[in-house]
């Protein structure tokens, strides 16, 4: 099989040995994903093998010429944050660009070996594989930059060629004071969940620091949220190929994408992205098709609804004010692979008062543009799946590996659990065998949102409490 994994969006970063390195990295992840699926299928049928998995390792199996490609898309605006905000869109928008560490866990801190605090935040509410940063002039938005490039790609790139990473940073940020040492983890960094010194190594000294200041507090180059990795996305797109059944033997399908996500433990059921991707991949498998992720494997911006942005007089803002800075909008297979997108009003455009027109003078679907999150609502992401009929693969239905418990505002947040939930907090009663637990397991992610008596945490979310509900750590 002559298949080669190209870098996401055919990015021209790696040299030839680097491209081989990237290919090998992706091939390893494809093999391990198949192994994980086979393990789950074998729990049902000991004779199951890779030949029964609907997700295919393309380095092992030739993609037939009749295979067709479909896109799976989702909106880039974080749904989980909206739930955290109790459905209050303005509140969600206000916090969407917050930096912090709740993508690791509630109260997570990064510390050195001797317990000193280290500032390594992420855009911890932007968890739909799209992150953005708004630049302002006198408090008014002037430019909004979007990226969907996974941090693990940049880790590999840095490990192979620091210089090119530095070059890209300088290019994207338009500044020449970025050096390789600025992008490196200076000393071992540990994850502490209680503020005390910890021996949980999070970032090794000398490796690439994806949460460096140029990619967080001072700029945006690629994704930072812990869950926004290419490995995680490929894994969930692969694992969701397993057909599922509940404890009564009934199919668990994408009819309820969140339920399927809770059953198969792929990703976060509170997002739009993960359940959507999982349900779509599961639908492909359920229709008897084998599939693999389309080369170059990646997450991409598919589209932006530029017509939703209007000038103060109601005229549409030109599409050219959205600038594709990395990736390709036109491709041979017809599927866009945009990786970096900037919205900015050109400097020579005048506003109604005669001064320069700023992004903040525009309207988004009729509302004044005050935050980048309003533009994020116009951005659609996608990934592509190449599928073909595979009648030889057996439809073995695997049991659920997890279920979900509820918590948070209006009991609307879902937390993946490998054990039954505390009484009254189970989202589903038929995914895992056994009766509800009377006491939550200490130390589980649920412990942060479920009180010891099993009741859910405070039902009403105020602005101050917003971050307190981020449980994280469900991966």
């Amino acid at each position: 099989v002559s298949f080669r994994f190209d870098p996401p969006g055919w990015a021209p970063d790696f040299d030839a040995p680097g491209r081989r390195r990237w290919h090998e990295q992706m091939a390893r992840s494809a093999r391990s994903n198949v192994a994980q699926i086979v393990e789950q299928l074998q729990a049902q049928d000991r004779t199951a093998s890779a030949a029964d998995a609907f997700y295919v390792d393309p380095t092992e199996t030739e993609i037939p010429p009749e295979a067709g490609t479909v896109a799976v898309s989702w909106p880039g605006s974080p749904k989980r944050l909206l739930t955290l905000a109790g459905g209050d869109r303005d509140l969600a928008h206000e916090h969407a660009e917050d930096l912090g560490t709740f993508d690791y866990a509630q109260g997570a801190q990064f510390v050195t070996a001797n317990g000193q605090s280290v500032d390594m935040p992420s855009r911890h509410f932007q968890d739909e594989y799209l992150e953005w940063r708004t630049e302002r002039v006198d408090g008014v938005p002037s430019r909004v930059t979007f990226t969907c490039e996974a941090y693990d790609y940049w880790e590999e790139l840095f490990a192979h060629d620091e210089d090119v990473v530095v070059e890209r940073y300088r290019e994207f940020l338009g500044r020449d004071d970025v050096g390789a040492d600025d992008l490196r983890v200076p000393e071992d960094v540990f994850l502490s969940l209680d503020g005390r010194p910890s021996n949980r190594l999070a970032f090794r000294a000398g490796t690439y620091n994806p949460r460096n200041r140029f990619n967080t507090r001072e700029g945006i180059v690629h994704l930072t949220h812990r869950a926004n990795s290419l490995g995680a996305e490929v894994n969930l797109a692969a694992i969701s190929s397993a057909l599922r059944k509940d404890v009564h033997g009934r199919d668990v399908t994408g009819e309820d994408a969140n339920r399927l996500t809770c059953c198969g433990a792929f990703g976060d059921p509170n997002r739009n992205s993960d359940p959507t991707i999982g349900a779509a991949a599961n639908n492909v498998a359920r229709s008897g098709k084998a599939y693999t992720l389309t080369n170059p494997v990646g997450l991409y911006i598919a589209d932006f609804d530029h017509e939703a942005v209007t000038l103060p007089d109601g005229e549409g803002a030109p599409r050219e004010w959205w600038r594709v800075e990395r990736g390709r909008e036109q491709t041979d297979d017809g599927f866009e692979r945009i990786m970096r997108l900037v919205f900015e009003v050109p400097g020579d455009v005048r506003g109604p008062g005669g001064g320069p027109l700023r992004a903040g003078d525009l309207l988004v679907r009729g509302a004044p543009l005050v935050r980048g999150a309003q533009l994020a609502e116009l951005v659609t992401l996608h990934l592509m799946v190449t599928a073909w009929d595979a009648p030889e693969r057996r439809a073995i239905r695997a049991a659920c590996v997890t279920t979900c418990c509820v918590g948070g505002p209006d009991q609307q947040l879902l937390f993946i659990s490998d054990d039954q939930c505390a009484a009254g907090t189970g989202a589903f009663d038929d995914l895992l065998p056994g009766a509800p637990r009377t006491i939550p397991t200490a130390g589980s992610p649920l412990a942060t949102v479920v009180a010891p008596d099993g009741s859910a945490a405070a039902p009403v979310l105020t602005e101050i409490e917003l971050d307190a509900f981020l449980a994280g750590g469900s991966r």
Partner: protein
Amino acid sequence: MNGWLLDGEPALATDRIQGNILAGFFTDHQLFVGLRIADASRARRWLAALAGDLTTVDDVLGHRARARASDERREPSGVWLNLGVACSALAAIGAPSAFDDLAFRAGLAARCRILGDPPSDPRTWRAGGTGDGRLDVLMILAGAPAALEARADELVASARAGGLEPSYREAGSTVPGRGIEHFGFRDGVSQPGVLGTVGGASDRPLTRRSIPDERAVPHAAPGKPLVWPGEFVFGYPGQGNLPRRPGPVARAGDDEQTTAFAHDGSLLVYRRLRQDVGAFRRFLAAGAEDLRRQGAHDMTPERLAALIVGRWPSGAPVTRTPDRDDPELGADRDRSNDFDFGDDVHGDRCPLAAHIRKVNPRAGPSDVSVPLQKRLLRRGIPYGPFVSENPSEDVDRGLLFLSYQCSIADQFEFLSTDWMNSPRRPAGSGGHDLVVGFEGAEGRRRDFELARRGGGPPFKVSTAEEWVLPAGGEYLFAPSTVALASLTG
């Protein structure tokens, strides 16, 4: 089997919720009457006094139960009356109007561009807009034609005396075939069921359940999922992340007065959609020929129309009968709705951009994890003569589109802007909704893709022609009878 209820299903105040919202009038004849406020304080009193005349859900359901028992027609013996008031009109009469919904606050005329509509001048709209047709109040009357006109005359006379002026009047009718719209298709086949019980604290579900409760997403009947009522009526739990659990309660705004006023009410979208049957048919003929040239040898205009809609004229879904219409299947309410797109990921049987997939992805590919949060209760009725009655192309005919929902921005407008008008959403690709989707970009070109049997790049037809021409309507609020009566003071 029919009596099951989910835990937490609320008792709906069906004695005060307007009947068309949750029961649907669904009569063969309706009359829309628009009013403009001339004198705000008198108009306020007039509206308050009208509360007692409004038809409630209980009224409609009661009539249907009696009709069923006595085998009578479903049509009401008198005239049913419902109404909606525009946000600006609520403000003008001093009623609570601090709704969160930006679209509702702005009104339809201000939102046309966002909806991608072909350019039209709201000052000249026959219904709604900013000229003589302004719809401060829209009354929807249902009943027998003669009775409708008489009742409308009576209401208009009373309104004139009460500080309002008539601004619009138009009859809708489904004759000659129940539920058939002007392009020849059965309309309104698939509506969501609504969770909740009727008549206060009874254990009688609003939506009758004809199948046992054994699906992950509760269904009242095949293809009829049950949606939490807060998607359509304020003050009730809406659709959350879990289909079997009540979601957050639908609130109209932060302001307590508005929230209380909106309780048991709903937002109403009225769109006057002119249909150009000739343009649609010409496109079908040209499009079918284009597709045959591309290699889709069995393509006919009739087949292309069915693929664009997702159903044949009888209502039979192309998913279940790909090659020809099946009127028997179309007539079977359950069977014609018993399908999903979960195993049709490429759009092999039903195109990804077919109208019925665009507005209701069912269990198929969708870009939002809870598509049930995007449903509407559609209550439209055609206007103008059918082609069978008057074949002229110059006749004004179309659909008086009505939908009820709690968020115009997140439901009606979302379906229009994010799904129907998008060439890729919700299924990832496939093109625009060619029935009612628009492309606001220059050129207004819309594409529609058909999967090629046996794989390969899809067939594609494109057009910049438009056969649905929205020019009129309004975004309104349909208050409960109690809220309307409260305007007395």
